[in-house]
């Protein structure tokens, strides 16, 4: 008979879902306005970019790597998108600019992937370097001036709706659905998990691990572009400082969702649920009516989540008896 503790520690997804529902219930009880459709929708829309990128990041971490440059990627992509579409700058047609942004995002991910696989560099270092370089490039492009005249045709991605749901929400759901299908039902997905689970065995089995990693990084870059397009276009201004701390949110979502940094283990679903939960923290602090100062604690709580998640992992490890032992 599985106890509640069993569920929480063994199947991380159940634990996160439970926590998610619990939070909704508790905060909703204290302040029912929290559960109004408008608020829920706003939270989800705010969360969409994290969800989208976390899908790609999950695969990267499953393979035993990491990408902390997604925030800076977003900064550069937003800047380029703004510069290309703004009437006072390049004033390209929106469709072309969007295509260019998607292409650029894919390219950035590809560069990360190439440096990690063929450059044989550790991903923490590669993405650390890229994080710095890309932020510098985006600042240089902005040259101190915010972009304030984004055309309506572009902003529709951020504020428009499709079948009544905001586009960012639809996009996020589609991305999650496709990535889950990729992970579970395609050979590519299975091979990614295999390569993450035992790299040496993967090599002996003839699996093309470098190409798998290349795919994961490139996908993450592409998804970052998608996230930028549906999120940054909500605002009328593109300024320096876009995407600061974004990578932290994404990695937190992935880790809290049960993906292990040592590779092989982790689900898209877990990252998705965990991203939702993290996205609620900021809103939660407001609705609990703890005062203006409470919102300053948002970051602290996000950090605390990771620590709780790893403690839960630790407890789970303790409980699992060593399988080699006699029954």
């Amino acid at each position: 008979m599985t106890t509640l503790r069993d569920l929480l520690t063994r199947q991380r997804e159940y634990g996160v879902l439970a926590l998610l529902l619990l939070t909704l219930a508790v905060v909703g009880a204290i302040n029912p306005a929290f559960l109004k459709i408008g608020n829920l929708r706003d939270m989800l829309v705010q969360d969409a970019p994290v969800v989208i990128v976390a899908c790609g990041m999950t695969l990267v971490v499953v393979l035993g790597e990491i990408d902390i440059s997604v925030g800076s990627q977003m900064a550069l992509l937003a800047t380029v998108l703004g510069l290309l579409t703004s009437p006072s700058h390049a004033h390209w047609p929106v469709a072309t600019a969007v295509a260019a942004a998607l292409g650029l995002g894919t390219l950035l991910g590809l560069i990360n992937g190439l440096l990690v696989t063929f450059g044989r560099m550790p991903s923490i270092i590669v993405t650390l370097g890229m994080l710095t370089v890309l932020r510098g490039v985006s600042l240089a492009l902005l040259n101190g001036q915010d972009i304030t005249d984004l055309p309506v045709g572009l902003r529709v991605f951020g504020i428009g709706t499709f079948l009544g749901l905001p586009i960012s929400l639809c996009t996020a759901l589609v991305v999650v659905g496709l990535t889950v299908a990729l992970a579970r039902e395609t050979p590519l997905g299975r091979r990614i998990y295999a390569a993450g689970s035992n790299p040496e065995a993967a090599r002996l089995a003839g699996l093309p691990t470098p190409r798998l990693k290349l795919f994961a990084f490139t996908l993450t870059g592409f998804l970052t572009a998608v996230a930028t397009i549906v999120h940054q276009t909500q605002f009328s201004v593109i300024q320096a400082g876009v995407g600061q701390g974004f990578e932290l949110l994404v990695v937190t979502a992935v880790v809290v969702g049960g993906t292990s940094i040592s590779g092989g283990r982790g689900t898209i679903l877990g990252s998705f649920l965990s991203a939702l939960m993290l996205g609620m923290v900021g809103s939660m602090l407001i609705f609990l009516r703890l005062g203006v100062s409470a919102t300053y604690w948002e970051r602290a709580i996000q950090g605390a989540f990771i620590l709780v998640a790893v403690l839960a992992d630790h407890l789970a490890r303790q409980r699992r008896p060593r399988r080699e032992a006699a029954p």
Partner: protein
Amino acid sequence: MTSTTPFVQISGLSKAYGGVPALTDVSLTIEAGDVHALMGENGAGKSTLIKCLSGVLSPSAGEVRVDGSILAPGDLRAAERAGIAALHQESTAFPHLDAVDNIFVGRELRRPGGLLDRPRMKRETQALLDRLGERIDLNRPLEELPLAQRQMVGLARALSQRSRLLIMDEPTASLSTRETEILFRIIRQLQSEGVAILYISHRLEEVFALASRVTVLRDGRLVETRPLAEITRDGLVRLMVGRELLAEEQSEDYAAQGEAILEVRHLTRAGQYHNISLDVRAGEIVGLAGLIGAGRSEVATAIFGIEPPDTGTVAIQGQVLPPGSVPAAIARGVALVPEDRQKQGLVLPLSVGSNLLLAVMKSLTTRGFRSPRKEQETVARLMQGLSVKAAGPAIAANTLSGGNQQKLSLGKWLATKPRVLILDEPTRGVDVGAKAEVYRLIRRLAREGMATLLISSDLPEILALSDRILVMRQGQIAGELARQDATEEKILALALPSGPQEALI
């Protein structure tokens, strides 16, 4: 059985790693339906030969022909298509994936459109496992299954490749007797289907039981290929070592021993071992036998302080050790030579000298600072005493052969002047020559008063070295045998789970 073209023909195969030859001009043929044994000391080139055959490595010279056509070198897929499959020594399973994925990843069955055909893969997996007589939960990730089942999945994967040449590298190293029996049955079945098997093992009994021909390699070269019917056990050993084997001579009579140095009382840890009590006297070698998974290594690491027990005490010369502290154990004179010398015993990228100093560094300091003189003396003394074959103390430990690495793993403890020596599989993966040296060393230490606890799965080894043998079964001590009464059968009788005696091969 014979046709004009042999099934697999290896001609003039050579492989050098950066100028250092690992394999030189090796030629042999393997016939379909044959079990062909490949033997040789560690470093003789067996591993390299296998890797060239299975496409992991590209040879520097020579060729491999399968059914007359040349096999593309260094190409895993080509080897697979030619029907060559390898069951490797190291774990090749994916712990986070379930059994089905483990068997099929890389060769997935697909539906039209590219998606996985899960029902078909599941059915085939079930069929394979039925053939092996294993019932496995197909939905659980492999890491949640018992070790033996995981090994079987690995075997199933190799079988699922419908290969024509199956290369098995030490396949019984981690198997229980029952599984070994099943493996042998499968091998015979495969033989009757015309599958050729290249069988690598250090275990002479297995080779004589299974194989029809044996190829011996030494120092990367072919020594000889002979039918097993024409050779004796000693003759085979002589081919591998190039000299008469001296080990396993009975040692002197039961030497007078002192008092108990190591006293273990009621050591218990849930799920691993229960109520373990034992004594080891000065000058005594106590063997600890048992099946894999009986809990022997866990007891050893508990005594040494790596993983504290739930209850129970360990006392050295009457003083109880604080549990869970390795430095405390070392300070009181306990030394553990662990099971896995690469992961636990040595820091391979460091030099030989550094490795020898690791355990003893602190005691060689003067007021906290290192003393190069004392360190050099210690290292030189140890290297000489162990006759470690290496160019000097500065070379990296990962360049040494397995036997020399084992000597290093053991030797680093001698500098701490221990009173209790715990050895966990001290000659696993060690060639015959180095084995003899290790035996001599163990005996010499015992004569000088060392209390030794010897854990080994090698029954002849335990019988030759131990003054007394304790047998563990499923986490408990099942019985004790004095040297004069002990036989392999009696040890196994105690080690096997209670029930009707299983017939051995």
